């Protein structure tokens, strides 16, 4: 429990006692520390856990769907679409009079980010789907095209943005958990946990899908339904996650990969284990983000990449003979 305001273990135990209705002798003195935990740090921790686990599960599912261990949720355009949506939100708000800004920013940017992410994914899915079913290869290429298009859109936004907007744009793309509020969590936690549970229930189908699409059908799976479900769940999960926390890279790619390296590719274990590791990684990264330059904060996306990339590289280094 470290950060801009010091909260001691004693404070924390005091708070727990207070919650349990026990008597705490110096309650008044501890009030400020308690408030920091209750209002800022606890929601932030919960947000980190659900976002981390959702990103990791969605990454695992996309790697399975695309039968490629290097896929991540951004492959279906959801991240680039969300970035564009958020960018539009940030710039539009910046153009409005300052009085309106603070009220609007809280809701508009997440909403547009979600809309952008979900819309981009639907477009990718539509392009990749014909009456004969969805082609994973076409979706992949469409995802790349959408990525390029959003990149151009972001370029335009950067060009027209003033200094404040630019700063907001940049920070959004590096992710942060600092916006967490209880109000937000009551909506987000059930949605993301629901998505995770449905995702895990698709594990058998994902396993069969690794053999190939027709093989999965021969094993009795309706793969068209399965593919649609995986895409929509990922678009929802990642869309909601980035809308509240900005872009947090690397979790969706690295976490399922690490889990697969240690416990194998069976999705019945891979998805829940990825959720746990994703949540842990993001919480750990958040602690680092708050501590290293305290009282200021590093954007969490930088920390996840700084932590994840070298670890990933060292694993690749160790296992490069096995990968071949």
């Amino acid at each position: 429990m470290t950060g801009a305001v010091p909260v001691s273990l004693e404070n924390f135990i005091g708070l727990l006692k207070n919650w349990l209705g026990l008597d705490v002798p110096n309650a008044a003195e501890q009030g400020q520390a308690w408030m920091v935990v209750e209002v800022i740090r606890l929601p932030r921790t919960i947000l980190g856990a659900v976002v981390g686990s959702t990103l990791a599960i969605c990454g695992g599912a996309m790697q399975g769907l695309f039968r490629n261990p290097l896929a991540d949720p951004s492959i279906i355009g959801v991240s680039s679409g969300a970035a564009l949506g958020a960018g539009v939100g940030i710039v539009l708000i910046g153009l409005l009079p300052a009085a309106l800004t603070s009220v609007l920013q809280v809701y508009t940017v997440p909403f547009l980010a979600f809309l952008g992410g979900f819309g981009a994914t639907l477009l990718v899915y539509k392009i990749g789907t014909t009456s004969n079913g969805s082609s994973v290869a076409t979706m992949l290429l469409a995802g790349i095209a959408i990525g390029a298009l959003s990149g151009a859109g972001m370029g335009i936004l950067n060009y027209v943005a003033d200094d404040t907007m630019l700063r907001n744009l940049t920070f959004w793309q590096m992710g942060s958990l600092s916006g967490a509020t209880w109000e937000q969590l009551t909506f987000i936690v059930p949605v993301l946990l629901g998505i995770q549970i449905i995702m895990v229930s698709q594990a058998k189908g994902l396993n069969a899908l690794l053999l190939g699409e027709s093989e999965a059908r021969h094993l009795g799976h309706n793969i068209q339904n399965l593919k649609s479900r995986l895409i929509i769940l990922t678009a929802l999960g990642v869309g909601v996650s980035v809308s509240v926390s900005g872009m947090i890279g690397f979790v969706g790619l690295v976490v399922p990969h690490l889990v697969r390296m240690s416990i194998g590719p069976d999705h019945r274990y891979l998805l829940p284990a990825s959720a746990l590791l994703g949540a842990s990684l993001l919480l750990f990264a958040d602690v680092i983000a708050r501590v290293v330059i305290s009282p200021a904060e590093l954007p969490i996306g930088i920390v996840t990449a700084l932590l994840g990339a070298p670890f990933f590289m060292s694993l690749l280094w160790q296992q490069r003979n096995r990968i071949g």
Partner: protein
Amino acid sequence: MEPNVSISLDVQGVSVRRGEHLLLDNVSFTAKPGEVVALLGPNGAGKSTLFKVVTDGMSADDGQVIFNDKPVNSWDLGERALMLGILPQSSSLNFPFSVSEVVLLGRSPCRSSREENAKVVEKALELVDATHLKERDYTTLSGGEKQRVHLARVLAQIWDESGPGPRLLLLDEPTSALDPAHQHQTLRIAKEFARNNVAVVVILHDLNLASQYADRLVMLCEGKVRAEGTSHEVLTPELLKQLLDIDVCIIPHPVNGYPLVVAA
């Protein structure tokens, strides 16, 4: 409706058009439980297209495929998976499952217990001579070993009669990556399954393997069935010259008497 046990797979006048080309032209053939049918023909004859139509990856422009008294597409996928085992030519699996996990995937449609599944996996691996590979990472296997593991997976899928009708085993060039000993082993397995009331359809290039193991040969050429019958009826020098453009002599096998094809 009582399933008609006499015919498991009934391909009825199937045609497939792609633009100007007729990939399949009014193809009909049947497979009954208990027999091994070999599908032969030169490259581009339409064997794989036919395979795709039968396995429901592709829709026919004309005709239909009846599997156990119902159009093959109208079966419930889960029910069908209990009766229809399909071995594709090659697999795109590139995730590091262990060999026994791959074979266990074949049991996923079955409603049997974990112990029972483990037993079937053991037996299937033993049958294809891959028990020693059990714990190996699938991605490190050779092409022939992979092919045998997938055969074991498909055999495990239809190991026992648990579906609403008789079983059908479709093998697309199951011997293409195998050494001679395992080629014979694979076809002996097909024969053994046929004896257990399974209909087996196998795409082959090796005429002598077909002659030795198949009860009936179906020769496909330019999208049409050009010959159908026992090996004695289909493997004649005239027909092979005409359909495959090879000059051959046919001699009887010195021990078993089935026709052997040797280049002239």
